């Protein structure tokens, strides 16, 4: 089964930009670390709370979405928020 790889950094970037007050300061870097693809998300300091959410709910939801994409494509996508 050949399928195009998902655009996970585009996905994370879209979600982050929709959450924050300063979308132009959203940056997503995609790094390969062993078997995993790590997405490093950087946002304006004042927007940090928005992408993390109360008790980490937002970042957890983004990770749940990435877990589903990981399962679907048999890969490992991880999200890290740079502070």
């Amino acid at each position: 089964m050949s399928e195009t790889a998902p655009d996970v950094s585009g996905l994370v970037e879209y979600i982050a930009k929709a959450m924050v007050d300063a979308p132009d300061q959203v940056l997503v870097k995609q790094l390969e670390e062993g078997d995993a693809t790590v997405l490093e998300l950087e946002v304006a300091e004042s927007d940090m709370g928005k992408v993390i959410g109360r008790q980490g709910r937002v970042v957890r939801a983004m990770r749940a979405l990435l877990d589903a994409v990981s399962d679907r494509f048999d890969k490992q996508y991880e999200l890290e928020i740079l502070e």
Partner: protein
Amino acid sequence: MPITDKISAANKIHEFLNVVVNKGGLRLKYRITVDPPLPEERDWERPEILVEFAGPDSAALLARGGALLRALELLALEMLRLPGNEHEKICFDCRNQRSLRIEELRAAANVAAEKVRTSGTPYQFAPMSSRERRIVHLALREYTDLRTESQGEGLRRSVVLYPGNYKSSSPR
């Protein structure tokens, strides 16, 4: 209080889900209904925007207690910047999971009520989201000899059911 512009909110949800499908590669179909008809008179949840999913990857939405379904719902709510008390106006569902979960919570509430009546001691439910706690509180409202409280913080917050005359010794 209704969502001020439901059509614009529905369009934003559509745009978000379109990105999830196209960039995330998940094989999901969805239908967004504004002001969906409700199957029955009910006071515990009256969504103004209903999103129903189908498609080959819809099983993934329901895995782990519907974690992905709730995650997508939460992300949509955050993007729309709806205040907490408006969150129940938007409901993401798949294969009737939401209704089944509500039935499950109401059944658990009834069982707990009988336990508290017989034992005379409080019963603590498992931690739940604010929306689920509200369903439990409402389901137990008809038991006028019992009372409910929410206890704990954040992700550990849960409903506790007391006999009506029970003196709470909780530190909170």
